């Protein structure tokens, strides 16, 4: 019964990844990326790899998002292409 959670979360990941690519605004893409690593950490927890989940959570949602946002602050928010 537990595998149903797994499949749902993996499908969630795929949708989040596609969304992160297709979204126009850069800041939204960054936010969806942090969402992606949020769910990814749960998949690690599901697989009982606790320390990996710790690092994924703290690096993925924490540091990466903040760095991207500061990078966005220095450059322009919208993507020209």
């Amino acid at each position: 019964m537990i595998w149903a959670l797994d499949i749902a979360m993996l499908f969630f990941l795929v949708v989040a990844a596609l969304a992160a690519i297709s979204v126009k605004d850069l800041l939204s893409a960054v936010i969806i990326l942090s969402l992606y690593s949020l769910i990814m950490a749960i998949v690690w927890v599901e697989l009982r790899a606790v320390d990996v989940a710790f690092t994924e959570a703290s690096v993925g949602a924490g540091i990466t998002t903040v760095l991207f946002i500061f990078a966005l602050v220095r450059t322009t928010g919208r993507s020209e292409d």
Partner: protein
Amino acid sequence: MEDLFLLAGLLLILTSFLSLYRAIHGPGIFNRIIAVNVIGTKTILLLVLIGFIYGRPHFLDIALVYALLNFIMTIAATKY
């Protein structure tokens, strides 16, 4: 009692699917920030539930980290 946790987990994932729709579709940036915030709080709960399903107590630390992260992420996004 066990399947109640599983049912709760499935329900949480379903609701986060719906809020993912809001995260993708949301007209402006701020709708997306709320969506991610909502999904963040749901994942905290999901973590605790998974910890209970597997009977492993030390998942709670991750949930605590998530609570902090969710907060920091929101503040960082609003600073911009």
